[in-house]
């Protein structure tokens, strides 16, 4: 028999018993659908992260912390509760600060352009001259001018400026009493911080607040992965807020921090990473942060692929069963074909092809249904929670991925089909023809 005839015959034979074939294909479909759709979502999310990372910019911007801190953070995050011996050189988390000496050491590394201690400022509220109300606000540092920020109006804060600058999100414009994004540009807002030392002395927490004035330079466009979040301030404003909060505290306490931030030569990031690693520091770049998010989604993908794999395993048993039934039903037909001179190998091929075709149809239906659902979800998402991101595709179908998945499923089906196909090929034509 020619190969094309074998395929056509196999496909024809498959649909002789429609219900059984349909159920087997359905089982394969459940597995292929799970894997294809979760891969498509993963592709979509990764693509989105890539685009966002590109948008963030920040080539050459790094964050540094002592290795001791990063190790302990990691063990806390991974739930590691093992007891460790105290090492006076390492100390505990509490004693591993970035000191002035550390900064000198880091600055001395080749390729480091700028390095400063980073103190995290916290704020109580924001207000303006146009409103009598105070509003809660979180501020975060916009640490480097190379980091891109999507602006609705105005410009981003200048990290290197000595003027105290802030950029807000759109929600605060109306609250602070301004008509439009443009109206608030260049205006002064007031931020309040808690003065820690003073607060120890007073009964009422509101009695220990102090305020700082800042200039609004721009309004940020909404984003998912904007670096930080909330209102963003430049270093000058950040430090002013921090200094005010720490007023009256011992200098040694005020200077304590676990983090340093700075700029390095983008070409030398990896080299600096190794160098600082030797010196006992861990660095984090924007790409590293994106990588962590990506790892998170990859883990979810693996979980879904395992589910899909289990479904496929069950489906493989279904294939074996279907083919054994088919072989038993067609015993006489097999005997006849052998009597007519069909070789054992061709009989084996014919039944293997049936198995492979089961896998093929299961995958194709899986692809079609997941595409249908995927594109449905995409357009639904754009009408609801993704209206802000017209270019973001939640589900992306990568043709190469789908080919690989189809290939793997067909391979699994082939392997499942070998036992029944072998039995068919080894049948004695006489016994087969006598079989009633």
């Amino acid at each position, binding site marked *: *028999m020619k190969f094309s*005839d074998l395929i056509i015959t196999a496909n024809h034979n498959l649909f*002789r018993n429609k219900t059984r074939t349909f159920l087997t294909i359905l089982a394969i479909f459940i597995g292929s659908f799970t894997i294809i759709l979760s891969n498509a979502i993963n592709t979509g999310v990764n693509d989105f992260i890539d685009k966002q990372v590109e948008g963030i910019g920040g080539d050459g911007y790094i964050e540094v912390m002592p290795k001791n801190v990063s190790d302990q953070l990691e063990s806390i995050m991974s739930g590691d509760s093992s007891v460790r011996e105290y090492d006076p050189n390492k100390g505990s988390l509490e004693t591993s600060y970035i000191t002035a000496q550390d900064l000198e050491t880091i600055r001395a590394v080749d390729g480091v352009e700028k390095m400063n201690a980073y103190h995290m400022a916290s704020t109580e509220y924001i207000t303006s001259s146009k409103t009598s109300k105070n509003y809660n606000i979180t501020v975060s540092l916009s640490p480097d001018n190379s980091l891109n920020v999507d602006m609705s109006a105005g410009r981003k804060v200048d990290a290197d400026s000595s003027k105290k600058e802030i950029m807000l999100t759109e929600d605060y414009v109306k609250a602070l009493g301004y008509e439009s994004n443009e109206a608030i540009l260049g205006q002064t807002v007031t931020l309040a911080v808690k003065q820690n030392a003073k607060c120890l002395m007073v009964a009422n927490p509101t009695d220990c607040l102090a305020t700082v004035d800042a200039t609004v330079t721009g309004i940020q466009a909404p984003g998912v992965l904007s670096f930080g979040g909330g209102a963003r301030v430049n270093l000058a404003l950040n430090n002013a807020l921090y200094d005010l909060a720490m007023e009256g505290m011992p200098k040694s306490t005020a200077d304590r921090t676990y983090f340093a931030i700075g700029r390095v030569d983008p070409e030398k990031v990896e080299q600096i990473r190794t160098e600082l690693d030797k010196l006992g520091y861990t660095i984090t770049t924007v790409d590293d942060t994106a990588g962590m998010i990506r790892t998170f989604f990859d883990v979810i993908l693996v979980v879904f692929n395992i589910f899909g794999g289990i479904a496929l395993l069950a489906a493989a048993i279904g294939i074996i069963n279907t083919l054994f039934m088919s072989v038993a039903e067609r015993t*006489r037909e097999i005997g006849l074909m052998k009597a007519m*001179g069909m*070789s054992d190998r061709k009989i084996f091929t014919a039944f293997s092809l049936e198995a492979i075709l089961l896998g093929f149809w299961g995958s194709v239906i899986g692809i079609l249904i997941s595409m249908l659902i995927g594109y449905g979800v995409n357009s639904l998402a754009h009408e609801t929670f993704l209206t802000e991101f017209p270019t973001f595709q939640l589900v992306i179908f990568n043709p190469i991925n789908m080919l690989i998945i189809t290939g793997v499923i067909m391979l699994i089906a082939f392997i499942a089909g070998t036992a029944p196909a072998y039995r068919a090929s080894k049948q*004695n034509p*006489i016994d087969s*023809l006598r079989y009633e």
Partner: protein
Amino acid sequence: MEKIIEVKNLTKVYGKRSAAFTALKNINLSIEKGESVAIVGKSGSGKSTLMHLLALLDKPTKGQVEINGINSTKLRGKSLNKLRNQEFGFVFQQFFMNSNDSVLENVLLPLKIAKISRFKRKKMAMEALKTVDLEDKARNKASDLSGGQKQRVCIARAIVNNPDIIFADEPTGNLDSATGDKITDLLFKLNKEKGVTLIIVTHDEDLAKLCSRIVRISDGNIISDQTVRKDLQKKSSDRREKEAARVKKANERKGN
């Protein structure tokens, strides 16, 4: 005459040791091209076993089968399959058709196995169907046919590859006498007109008498091997023709 099948010291034993059963004992037989041979015997006599060995569907325990002078017991794999595919045609009592396929698909199955092109095999299958007078049923589903029509389709399938030998295992066993006669006529017509060697396994004495030679088997031995006189053969077929005409008339009367 040219010998088409030559059987030497053929023995077939089923099972092993204490369970061993000798189905054929040291059979010698030679069949010439164009003969029509009936292998007659009771069930269990070994007649089916002999046919299976002649048709190379089974391996003998001892002895050999020569087809066209070639020792076929030594053939393996491809050459064996090719021989079966091109030299033999099979007609079985139980038809063995793929009932869900069309008549045409059933007939061209041997050609499909022989890797003959789509166009050519369809043409050959239609010709074979014409021979059995069923060309108008080519598109029908095989399961929709009557028993006689099914057996005619099987004959078409057996002759589609222009074989030298047709093996027929109780070809009329599942048919009433009138349709059975039609099938017999067809087989002998092929034997006479195309010179196809006919080997029929049967326990039907009437059918056996139509053949040019009757080989009787009992307990794995050939107990007689007689050539039927041509005049007797003629008489038998004349009687059958008369019977067929009578049935036809009766049917026509019923129709009126």
